[in-house]
């Protein structure tokens, strides 16, 4: 008895004992769960395997980025769904970042009206569930937007109807490679020039107009190539034919509503993050920068932003991750993302709940682990080296 007592009193042996108990408990729980699964599957005559992925899917998907028909396999349907998820996430991240930075700066504006409007927008948006945003915007497009015949239009180029948004579609012709080449060359030049300018600034303190030069190159070079190759890109404009639009790209109402709702919702959070990041930079930094005679743009670009960035980026990344995960709410309005294809229709058709849900959760888990790995790397790179 006293021997056992002495084991428990010793910190090291107690730690080992506790860990053994915990591991045994977890092991027992998992073996119980798995044995339940096995006996349940046996009584239902169900197997476990991923061969169903190669069977024909048999359902249509209204928005596909790659070749897909209802005779394609479940695996292809899943890939289409995953690409749709990425599409919403990518467009949403860009829009949310733009709107979010505008909101963050507007919130700090000296103009009372601007800052109060940004505040009202942020509070009203982030205090309402994102699912409600998605359903509301979907409802607005489907129930309130006009029929194609009375479409709302911006310069006869964009058309907004209850069947979605119609935008012009660029069509590549022969000679397009020259434009791509011009683009890649401009990109290389920009990176090189930025490095050169930075090195020169470190040496001599002279600043070159990097942004303006690079912007000009990135626009002019591809444009030059475009004309040199004989204008190899043409636009197909949407036009009303009968009851619907022909030509152009049709963005279905589900896509428009989902992307828009996710963007404006996430932008409210990003706005607050940007504001907090700018405020967090010490006041003395701005004052010192102004005192040594930097221009307002230099104060912002060379002093405030590099320090604010360190504070802004980590929460910003987790907002991007949230946006990507929230895109799974697409299933509520019928947008065919990875959850709606693999975890929705494929699950219902094949009855493989276990396999499909494991795959869907695995995919989301991989995405989020990749993003957190990036975040950790970034954090360790920009961290202030303290004592």
């Amino acid at each position, binding site marked *: 008895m006293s021997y056992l007592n002495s084991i428990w009193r010793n910190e090291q042996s107690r*730690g080992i004992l*506790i*860990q053994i108990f*915990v*591991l045994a408990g*977890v092991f027992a729980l998992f073996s119980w*769960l798995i044995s*339940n*699964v096995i*006996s*349940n*599957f046996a*009584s239902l005559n169900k197997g476990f395997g991923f061969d169903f992925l190669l069977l024909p899917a048999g359902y249509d998907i209204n928005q596909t980025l790659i070749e897909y028909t209802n005779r394609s396999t479940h695996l292809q349907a899943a890939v289409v769904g995953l690409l749709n998820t990425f599409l919403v996430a990518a467009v949403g991240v860009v829009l949310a970042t733009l709107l979010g930075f505008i909101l963050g700066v507007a919130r700090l504006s*000296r*103009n*009372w*009206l*601007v800052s109060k*409007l940004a505040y009202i927008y942020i*509070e*009203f948006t982030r*205090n*309402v*569930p*994102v*699912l*409600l945003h998605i*359903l*509301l915007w*979907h*409802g*607005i497009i*489907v*129930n*309130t937007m006009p029929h194609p015949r009375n479409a709302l239009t911006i310069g006869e180029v964009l058309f907004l109807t209850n069947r979605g948004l119609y935008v012009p579609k660029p069509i590549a012709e022969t000679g397009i490679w020259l434009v791509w080449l011009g683009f890649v060359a401009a990109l290389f030049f920009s990176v090189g020039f930025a490095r050169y300018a930075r090195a020169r600034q470190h040496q001599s303190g002279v600043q070159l107009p990097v942004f303006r030069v690079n912007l000009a190159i990135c626009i002019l070079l591809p444009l030059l190539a475009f004309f040199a190759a004989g204008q190899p890109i043409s636009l197909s404009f949407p036009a009303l034919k009968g009851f619907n639009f022909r030509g152009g790209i049709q963005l279905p109402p589900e896509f428009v509503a989902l992307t828009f709702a996710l963007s404006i919702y996430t932008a409210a959070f990003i706005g607050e993050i940007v504001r907090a990041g700018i405020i967090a930079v010490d006041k003395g930094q701005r004052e010192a920068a102004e005192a040594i005679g930097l221009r307002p743009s230099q104060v912002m670009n060379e002093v405030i932003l590099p320090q604010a960035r360190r504070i802004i980026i980590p929460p910003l990344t987790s907002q991007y991750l949230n946006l990507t*995960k*929230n895109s*799974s*709410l697409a*299933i*509520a309005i019928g947008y065919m993302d990875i*959850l709606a294809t693999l*975890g929705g229709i494929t*699950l219902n058709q094949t009855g493989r*709940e*276990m396999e499909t*849900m494991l795959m*869907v*959760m695995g995919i*989301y*888990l991989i*995405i*989020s*682990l990749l993003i*957190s790995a990036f975040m950790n790397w970034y954090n360790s790179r920009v961290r202030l080296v303290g004592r």
Partner: protein
Amino acid sequence: MASLRSQSHKGYVAKASLPALPPPLGTRGLVGWLRQNLFYNITNSLMTIVIVLLLWLLISSSSGWFVFDAVVQGSSKQECLQIDSGACWAVIGKRIDQFMFGFYPEAERWRPLICFFLLFVAIGPLLLPSFPARRQMLWFSAFYPVLAGVLLLGGVFGLPPVKTALFGGFMLTLIVGVTGIVASLPLGILLALGRQSRLLAVRTLSIMFIELMRGVPLITLLFVASTMLNYFLPPGTHFDLLLRVLIMVTLFSAAYIAEVIRGGLQAIPAGQYEAAQAIGLDYWQTTRLITLPQALKISIPGIVNTFIGLYKDTTLVIVIGLLDPLGIGRAALADANWNGLSNEIYLFVALFFFVSCFAMSRYSIWLEKRLATEHR
């Protein structure tokens, strides 16, 4: 020289200092405020004017739909349209009972109502330090979950039992939200401590659980709860759907709470741990008396934000067929009489969520200010 000195100035000599003049007209009062905040240079004046114009356009074009052309009486969308062209708020009035209680039996609705009012009595002493008889009332708070469960479910003390499948509306939102919040805080604290533990097995398991829960969307966990959980239990086990949802929501939000509290724990200076060890406290005493109180105080904004997120996420239960306000609204939209009134219904539900979430975030700001005892 002497004559010069004696020569006195016969001018006006003030005996007392004059009262200060008010600042110039342009820098005080309404005019000054306007100048400083709205018209302090040309760009800003232009911006102000454009915004005012846009706001005026927005308000004048939408107020008709919201208020002046809106219909509050009627029994279908067609009837509303015959009366006026604006919003058809009649649908809210006709369905308000369902929005509040779902399909809870009409004769028993006093029970959720009593629960709702007692909820404030129960959370009052937790939230407000100046609550009357706080110490005694905390016992009531501890007892409240049992009381609410008995009242809502019935089946004892002569209360007729009510199935959880009939729960719905704002009542369901509050049940899922409050249960999730109350249950996830202790679990989140344990997970945060587990993640900081020196024991490798405990730490690894905590990290795995937290990363798994945070890595997948809540909606997939709800799917698992509704479609797959039966496979993991012995054959023939019946498990209430609402209970499964509550468990999943709690686990999900506990992982987020754990990360917030971990941030708080990491922010505590190492000297605090060392001092606690030096005066001979063991691990649990250190945690309970020294580190956790400080960590919780730092993490309050994050915790409340997580709670607000959880509360908003309760809407996801519609995807697995529970009827929260959003689900009730969708059911009303499926009714041929109200088909197409999505704007009215969703805006009404949005208002409900806005009011409750905004109140929570205001409370968090108030608490933060009250607890800010250092770094003034």
